[in-house]
């Protein structure tokens, strides 16, 4: 309760400060809440952007595909790097180094490869989500207590059984953390991709509003997108807490 009250307090203070500052400076540039809220109403009533719903769905679909691919590839590559000593020694440092590169530098190439449609956004979302998931699987496998593996072997467990019954639960916490980071980054990848260059999706609407200097609509679009991001992260954090109770 107290946490909620504190959160509400800082939100209110922030909105009031925003309102005051924006009115004092330039309401067109700084969009006070008193202007943003009506714009949000018009947006949700499908007046300012009638194609809001298909745009939202397109962005969501891109995120789901990008994230799904990132999970599949991340689990596969992470397992290969973690379970095979030679592969791990050869490639793990490269994966780590690539993760450190600001991924935006790849985006122009992705647009050249995949065009301006959904494919390049999915590729970018995938690229961003792939690394944290791969590295989490790798770290998870490396932190499994070798003693537990010996116990499982002594009781007759075969490699696949060891993986399913010992390694996966032992690394669950790290894995879920990586999946959560991967989701956040996949979402960022898709939306940034849309903003940088596209003809449809939430990012394209944001770009449109911004380009036409419809600042209030722009803020309203950002708020809707934010809800999407915060919502997905809330689901992820719920799953993470479940996993936390499981391990350790």
């Amino acid at each position: 309760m107290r946490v909620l009250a504190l959160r509400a307090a800082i939100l209110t203070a922030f909105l009031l400060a925003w309102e005051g500052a924006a009115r004092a400076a330039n309401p067109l540039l700084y969009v006070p809440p008193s202007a943003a809220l009506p714009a949000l109403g018009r947006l949700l009533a499908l007046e300012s952007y009638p194609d809001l719903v298909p745009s939202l769905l397109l962005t969501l679909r891109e995120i789901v595909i990008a994230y799904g691919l990132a999970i599949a590839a991340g689990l596969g590559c992470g397992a290969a790097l973690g379970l095979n000593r030679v592969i791990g020694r050869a490639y793990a440092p490269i994966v780590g180094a690539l993760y450190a590169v600001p991924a935006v530098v790849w985006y122009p190439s992705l647009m050249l490869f995949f065009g301006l449609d959904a494919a390049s956004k999915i590729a970018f979302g995938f690229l961003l989500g792939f690394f944290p998931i791969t590295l989490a699987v790798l770290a998870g496998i490396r932190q499994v207590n070798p003693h537990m593996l010996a116990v499982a072997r002594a009781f007759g467990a075969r490699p696949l059984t060891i993986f399913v019954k010992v390694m996966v639960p032992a690394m669950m916490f790290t894995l879920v953390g990586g999946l959560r980071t991967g989701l956040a980054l996949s979402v960022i990848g898709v939306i940034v991709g849309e903003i940088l260059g596209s003809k449809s999706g939430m990012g394209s609407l944001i770009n449109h509003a911004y380009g036409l200097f419809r600042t209030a609509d722009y803020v309203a679009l950002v708020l809707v997108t934010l809800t999407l991001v915060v919502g997905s992260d809330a689901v992820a954090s719920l799953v993470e807490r479940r996993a936390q109770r499981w391990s350790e």
Partner: protein
Amino acid sequence: MSDLIAVEHVGKQYRTSSGPVEALHDVSLAVGAGEFCTVIGPSGCGKSTLLGMLAGLVAADSGRVLVDGRPVTAPDPRRVATVFQDAGLFPWRTALENVEFGLELQGVPRERRRAVATELLGPLGLREFASKYPRELSGGMRQRVAIGRALAIDTQIVLMDEPFGALDEQTRLLMGEWLLDIWRRTRKTVVFVTHSLHEALALSTRVVVMTARPGRIKSVLELPMPYPRTMESPEMAGLRARLWDEIRDESRRAMGER
């Protein structure tokens, strides 16, 4: 070939960064069915390596290990169960689920294995702790769960690698008494590795003393006395002095090596 366990001229080397280290050198040992055989020796004398070989977790470089007349090449959970020094419980499983682990791997149906594990919790003194996770249990309880996990698969042979090594002395004494009771009721064959003279003398039918690295068998002490043993009796005090004599030089050598 009436011996249940036969270790024949076994040797083992480990490669380390500072060159090869000989852990075991020409070790031979036979353990009969129903024996409580304790292996005692200084740190690093290869006791755990020897136990690992019996468990099928460590391969010998030379010689061979036979269980029931058959060479050991891999873990065989139908004949041999192992209790490790660090309990090695799975933290995401409850005490009961940990005890069930071996049965689960053998494909025993859920209800059957639950029944077996639940029945074991009584003598383990864990009846009220079935649904607790390892982090909620004391060190002694955790070790009892690990012993329960080994007993659940009901093998003829149980290997124990310093199972009470990490416990405080009082808990250790009580656990020793408890283990003796279990062993006398189940008549399993136990190979027990320890540092403790007291444990060796109170529990074993036979004590095997190993030398400092490379581990060799220095002497074997038969202990035919009935249980429970009074450790204060002149006979036991004499045996204790003799055993300490045997181990003392080896421990000194092991200490000097570091």
